[in-house]
């Protein structure tokens, strides 16, 4: 299955066009150079295939050595627990989970330790750890390797959750995540690794909790996660031909969530569609809609809609997989409905 290559605007002088994976690699490399406490650990991040199954850690072991780029056993709980301990002890680990689907095995150290230690020790200890993982479908990886599970982590107080959709956001947010004194669940999307985009050179951190307007529009607001940002931009072109002007907001981090940006957009458009690949039921879309209704009920001219993954295990078959995922035409249909 061919991977989509999403080109955005031409790179200005101070930027290069990188893939999403290259941008992440650059963030890791620059942070490891900047701060000797930063180290990387995970399954096959060092030796196998030269830097992880998606190449995000490519070349790091050569530059920083096996002490700071560590292959681990296939035990997600061990990866998470070791990272939490190292963080409490003063290191700044970046722990990689090969698939977010297997973070279920690591929930005890993430949820009960990383998320709570700073609170329970009255601020005397902090857990500056990044839990990196990739999620999402679109590669025929089947039901156990294709899920989008960001809502699990958004539910837990004490965890920040980043969901970058572009190479620039991936680099800038990962830099911020590594520098954060609190645990960050950093969720990448496997389909996006090979997408390209301009990335500012040098030390450019994107703060957590600041949304990005990927496309300005007047008639409806779309808030989406990961691939849904790009699908919404495609849908916006279709809709523009029909005279519907769609605004696309990328929250970039779900915790903290930039509600102000979304509310400002909804106050302008009066209509809201929220999208994610994750299962619709109890997905982050419901949370976003609830927050918007509470904050801006009088701005809404139509019931907000969700465009989400079906509540089914994600199929292996490519056509069924596509059918289970929200597509650009689904976004367009939902937008037409809210502007009707």
């Amino acid at each position, binding site marked *: 299955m061919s991977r989509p290559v999403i080109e955005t605007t031409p790179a200005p002088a101070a930027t290069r066009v990188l893939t999403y994976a290259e941008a992440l690699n650059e963030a890791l490399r620059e942070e490891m150079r900047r701060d000797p406490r930063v180290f990387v650990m995970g399954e096959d991040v060092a030796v196998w295939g030269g830097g992880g199954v998606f190449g995000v850690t490519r070349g790091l072991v050569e530059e920083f050595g096996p002490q700071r780029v560590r292959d681990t056993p296939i035990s997600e709980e061990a990866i998470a627990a070791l990272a939490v301990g190292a963080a409490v002890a003063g290191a700044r680990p970046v722990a990689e989970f090969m698939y977010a689907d297997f973070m279920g095995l690591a929930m005890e150290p993430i949820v009960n330790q990383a998320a709570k230690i700073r609170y329970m020790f009255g601020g005397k200890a902090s857990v500056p750890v990044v839990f990196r993982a990739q999620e999402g479908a679109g590669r025929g990886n089947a039901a156990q390797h294709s899920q989008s599970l960001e809502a699990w982590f958004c539910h837990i107080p004490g965890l920040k959750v980043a969901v970058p959709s572009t190479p620039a956001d991936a680099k800038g947010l990962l830099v911020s995540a590594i520098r954060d004194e609190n645990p960050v669940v950093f969720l990448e999307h496997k389909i996006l690794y090979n997408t390209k985009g301009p990335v500012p050179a040098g030390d450019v951190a994107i703060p957590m909790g600041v949304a990005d307007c990927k496309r300005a529009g007047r008639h409806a607001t779309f808030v989406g996660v990961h691939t849904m940002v790009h699908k919404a931009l495609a849908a916006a072109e279709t809709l523009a031909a029909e005279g519907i002007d769609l605004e696309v907001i990328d929250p970039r981090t779900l915790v903290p969530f930039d509600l102000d940006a979304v509310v400002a957009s909804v106050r302008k458009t009066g209509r809201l569609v929220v999208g994610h690949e994750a299962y619709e039921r109890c997905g982050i879309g419901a949370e976003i809609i609830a927050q918007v209704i509470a904050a801006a009920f*009088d701005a809404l001219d139509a019931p907000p809609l*969700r465009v989400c993954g079906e509540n089914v295990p994600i199929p292996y078959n490519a056509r069924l997989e596509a059918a289970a995922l929200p597509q650009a035409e689904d976004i367009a249909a939902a937008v037409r409905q809210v502007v009707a």
Partner: protein
Amino acid sequence: MATEVVLPRLGLTQEEGTVVRWLKVEGSRVAKGEPLFEVMTDKATLEVEAPASGVLLRILVAEGGTVPVATPIAVIGEPDEAALHSALGAPGTGGRAHTAGGQAEAGRSGGAAANADRKADQRPIEAGSRAEVGAEWSQDTAAGNGPGRNVSAASPAPDPTGRVKISPRARALADAQGVDVRSLAGTGPGGRVIERDVQQAIAARGTAPAGGAQAPAAQRAQAAGSPGPQAAASAPTAVPAPPVRQVPEVAAGPSPAAAPGAAAARMRAIIARRMLESLQTTAQLTLTTEVDMEETERLRSEVGPELERREGVRVTYTDLVVRAVAVALREHPAVNARWEGEGARRLPEIHIGVAVALDEGLVVPVVRHADRATLAQVSAAIRDLSERARGMRLRPEEMQGSTFTVTNLGMYDVDAFTPVLNPPEAGILGVGRLHRRPAAVGDRVEVRAGMVLSLTFDHRVVDGAPAAQFLQRTKFILEHPYLLLLP
């Protein structure tokens, strides 16, 4: 062109009605004249026929919903619109849009369809229609016919309290701009008033007189109050249908909102409103007089059996009082009148309302031209009306137009009371118990039949002396009851 079905005005004073039951489901085909829904007005439930042929595209007011007269309650469309509607209802090209609210309502179709069969041979009344509003609706639909437009999810259940269906954004704008949202026709999904409707109303200010858009619809609805033709019986009925089109309130229905309790509550609300209005807006007071009923008893015992044999009627004391009142009113037209803002107007005809107590409350069917009817005719009319009233099978027009009312509490051993005027009438006569009691006859005491009449009248319309003269004349007629037999 789509036709909007509006809640018909079935009586002159009717302000609102309750959709008791839909006899067709959304998406089903209806023929003009076919029974479409049942509506409960002030005190009766009637079947209403479709104003046009086509497909029932949308039901805007669910069963149990109460809305003002002339409110759109459904849309009937042409076949091509039906196809469009069908396309709109489909998920579209992989459409996966879901409302935050979730499920489209479904499932009431089976019961309603069965009811449609059962009621098919009852006579309907034609509903009013607002074709031009329907045209707006269809234009709006055509403008937004994108694939995947989820019509079913966009049709929230109407609020039975009759509140305006309006988006929060539109309401905020209307509040800020002082726009009366009840005057707006919603063009959003399911007829929802959305921002553009308010914006158009603001833009239209000054170009049209206020309320102008509403008046024609109300007139049409009022004009549609006449009974329609008999509907053809189109389905075999397992249960014999009643000979008239009203549906007994006790009929089991699929909708809890239309249960008998709701009917009773609704009647209670109407009675409450009218009685309070009566006491707050009239100048009423009550006169009483005692009537010697010996002669009337004798008349009834002597003429009654003869009337029963020849005319098949059993004359009651209520019949005799109604006839006496009608005759007396003819001679005292000042009491057969009403207050009309500027002054009192005498009414050319005499129609006597007869209060009938029901478990659910009170209804007042009307004996028309009681002064011109014979005693036997009055008796037959009262019997027919009261029997059908107890079955909740009166038509609204049979409860309207009375110029004077007679109410009888004598059977409960009430001697005298202060009846409350039935607006806009100027008089109501309360009948007390008929019983034998000692009475002075000359200088002797005899045991004779007697009863007390209580006349409440509106002092704005008539003064005490003429009202007393009317009461005196009624007493005289009942004490000389052979006058009742004169034409």
